[in-house]
């Protein structure tokens, strides 16, 4: 069996065994169930809203939760093994260093995929069972949500490996990961909002604004989910934003792929030169 597959399989099994997958799935299922059933409570109405509304709520949850659990999984992946001494032995085996990075990426992505699909899927199914009317809009938006959530997770897995390949201690990696998470999940958008507010929206052209949004993977995720699917656009408050809605889906998908690709490539290049 290829070394990459062997490492991926080991990471996947480790994740299942050390309860990471179980806890991540439970957290996602719990929070998404709460959102599905109580998501419309602020409107004074407790009950199951259309699935499309649940998608809007879950998208907001994903932006905070998925990057966090992805970083928890990945920030330690390389530096942790270097510190514990298992990396030294592994590197004396006929394994290329890029295979170690990609093997971990594959295994962790699979874990994330299972946790997200089961966690969110449970909420979706429960909502559909409770009120069959809720899925009148079809499952499409929900499927897009799950796929893009996993994709967003893989972006932060890749960023986590990059951190892990750069630092000397896992404690440093954890600190950097928290800062990175804060920046992308919160500070970037806050900063952008602040800038738009102070310049009265005149400081930046619509084209430039679109490109700026591409600099934050969580915004790419939001754009795909909140504007990409017609059914959802109605509930997300994005219907009236033609400038944003004109970012074509393929562009967003490519942007996502770039965000997964560059940290991985950089990680492999850095890790290849890292002395042990």
């Amino acid at each position, binding site marked *: 069996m290829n070394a990459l597959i*062997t490492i991926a399989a*080991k990471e996947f099994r*480790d994740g299942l065994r050390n309860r990471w997958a179980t806890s991540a799935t439970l957290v996602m299922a719990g929070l998404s169930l709460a959102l599905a059933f109580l998501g419309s409570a602020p409107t004074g109405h407790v009950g199951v809203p259309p699935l499309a509304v649940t998608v809007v709520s879950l998208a907001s949850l994903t932006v905070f939760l998925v990057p966090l659990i992805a970083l928890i999984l990945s920030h330690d992946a390389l530096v942790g093994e270097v510190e514990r001494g*298992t990396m*030294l*032995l*592994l590197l004396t*085996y*006929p394994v290329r260093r890029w295979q170690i990075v990609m093997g971990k990426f594959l295994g962790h992505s699979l874990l994330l995929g299972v946790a997200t699909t089961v966690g969110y899927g449970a909420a979706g199914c429960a909502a559909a069972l409770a009120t069959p009317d809720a899925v009148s809009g079809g499952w499409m938006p929900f499927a897009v949500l799950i796929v893009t959530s996993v994709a967003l997770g893989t972006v932060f897995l890749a960023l986590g490996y990059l951190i892990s390949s750069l630092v000397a201690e896992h404690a440093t990696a954890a600190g950097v990961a928290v800062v990175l998470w804060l920046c992308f999940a919160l500070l970037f958008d806050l900063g952008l909002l602040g800038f738009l507010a102070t310049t009265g929206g005149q400081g930046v052209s619509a084209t430039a604004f679109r490109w700026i949004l591409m600099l934050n993977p969580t915004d790419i995720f939001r754009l795909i989910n909140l504007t990409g699917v017609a059914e959802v656009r109605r509930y997300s408050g994005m219907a009236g934003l033609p400038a944003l809605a004109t970012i074509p889906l393929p562009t967003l998908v490519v942007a996502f792929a770039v965000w997964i690709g560059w940290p991985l490539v950089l990680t492999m290049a850095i890790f290849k030169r890292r002395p*042990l």
Partner: protein
Amino acid sequence: MTPVTLSSAAKRYGTQWAVRGIDLSLMAGERLALLGHNGAGKTTLMKLILGLIRPEEGSVRIFGRDPAHSRGMEGAAIGFLPENVTFHNAMTGRETLAFYARLKRQSGAGCSDLLDRVGLAGAADRRVATYSKGMRQRLGLAQALLGAPRLLLLDEPTTGLDQSLRQTFYDILADLADNGTAVLLSSHLLSEVETKTDRIAVMDRGRLLIAGTLADLRTAVDLPLEVRLTVARDRTQDVVRRLAPFHPAGDGEALSLWCRPQDKMSVLREVGAMGSAVIDIDIHQPGLDAVYARLTGTTIGKPIGAPVAEQAS
């Protein structure tokens, strides 16, 4: 193809040379012990051989290839046991070995035999987290033996092992060497290395002081050897007089003297010429610990091979 060849190899960390000017080769079927204090450069040398680090100067060749190019090392059949080996705690011993076997492209079939061979058969299905230091070391040896390696590198392999396991350990090494595996092991336990290996290399502060058999080392350090004589009581004075150049000490029946290795035959000839005056003779060669102490203790700052002042203790 020579398993290991280092020519003037040097590795620097920052401004500090970890090893420098290392010329060493290891032949198939040979067991070479690497001796040295902590920080002498033993582990650095192993990392160079494994291709984990690249030399700043000189070259390292493993079976004729550069180990730092991973492409070149695939299928090179190298086994390595790091110092203080660690494993993933959540996996069992059997799973751990199966994981490493797959990476070496071995079928899992031989794993049970290997676990049996290192005495872990009973604990194979327990999590590695529950293993003692000795059990981890056994598992470490098992993974190093995967895939019938032609070159085996062992960093302090017997620390933490009890006496019986050490014996098993060296038996396995002897088997491997008989089948043509080149073995390089570092150790602090001089008494073991003295009898269980073919050649000894002594490192000190990043330099390779000497490599050779124990006899080579003895000759090189020029340590005096002790000759003990049992003489006929009434001829003691006669013997003392004839061996005067070697300053024999003692009186009555027991005499002892120290001489340089190259004077050993002169002493024996004198003794032989004295006929029945000498009843018995014992020659004590300095042990590896004395040789090692001389090599690493009194040669500091002197170039390799420089004459060492004679010192009769």
